């Protein structure tokens, strides 16, 4: 089996689809691709959804009229 060495991540933080590794956190933990596969989306689709949510700023609340 593949060893979890730095070499497997040499292409950058993200790895190719089908790779055993999803990515690496800023603190250095290698995140492995779960064995159970998703049924309702692909990795790319859920990654895009995560980016949308994480990068979107919460909507500013409308100021209430006090009059």
């Amino acid at each position, binding site marked *: 089996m593949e060893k979890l060495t730095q070499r497997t991540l040499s292409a950058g933080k993200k790895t190719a689809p089908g790779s055993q590794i999803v990515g690496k956190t800023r603190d250095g933990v290698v995140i492995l691709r779960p064995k159970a596969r998703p049924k309702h989306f692909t990795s790319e689709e859920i*990654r895009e959804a995560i980016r949308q949510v994480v990068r979107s700023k919460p909507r500013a609340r409308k100021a209430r009229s006090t009059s």
Partner: protein
Amino acid sequence: MAAADRHVFINCPFDGEYNAFFHAIVFVVIRSGFYPRCALETDDSSENRYGKICAIIEQCRYGIHDISRTEPDSRYRLPRFNMPLELGLFLGAKRFGRTSQSRKVCIVLDRERYRFQKFISDIAGQDIHSHQGKIAVLIEELASWLRNHSRDASVPGGRKMAREFSVFRKQMPRICAARNLEPDELTFGDYAALVAEYIAEVA
């Protein structure tokens, strides 16, 4: 540590009441650099469920067993025996299996540390951990246990993971909505993939 040694068998209730705890366990396993595995992988009715569970247990060096659910269920008024059965299978594989099986390690969790002695006293002598029915305590217990076994100093502590999980739980409904899904429609494979991609993106 080789990838083959990073499979963690999760043995716990899968009902709605325990759902947040189950989600927290999967989050900690992935955040610590391991593969989450459980009986929910066996949703193909053409397969023999018991045989599939045995195969998953055989592939897992580590086991997380939460035996806290002892109450009768509301529908049949009988307790669920799947958790003690799967704990027994895991311990049996370690006891009677070949060399790789004998290296199995597990953590057993209950709500109170010594309560198990009243309903499964044969495992007295095992080190039982208590999560006190609190998700933050569960995360801390699991994070330190997995960090010790991974021997990876980069794996963060349980309190940081608990904070990360809390933020993730708040964002999960919006992430699901972006895919036209409700959180309770996710399969185990969906949830595990979502967590892995989220952690790789955010943490």
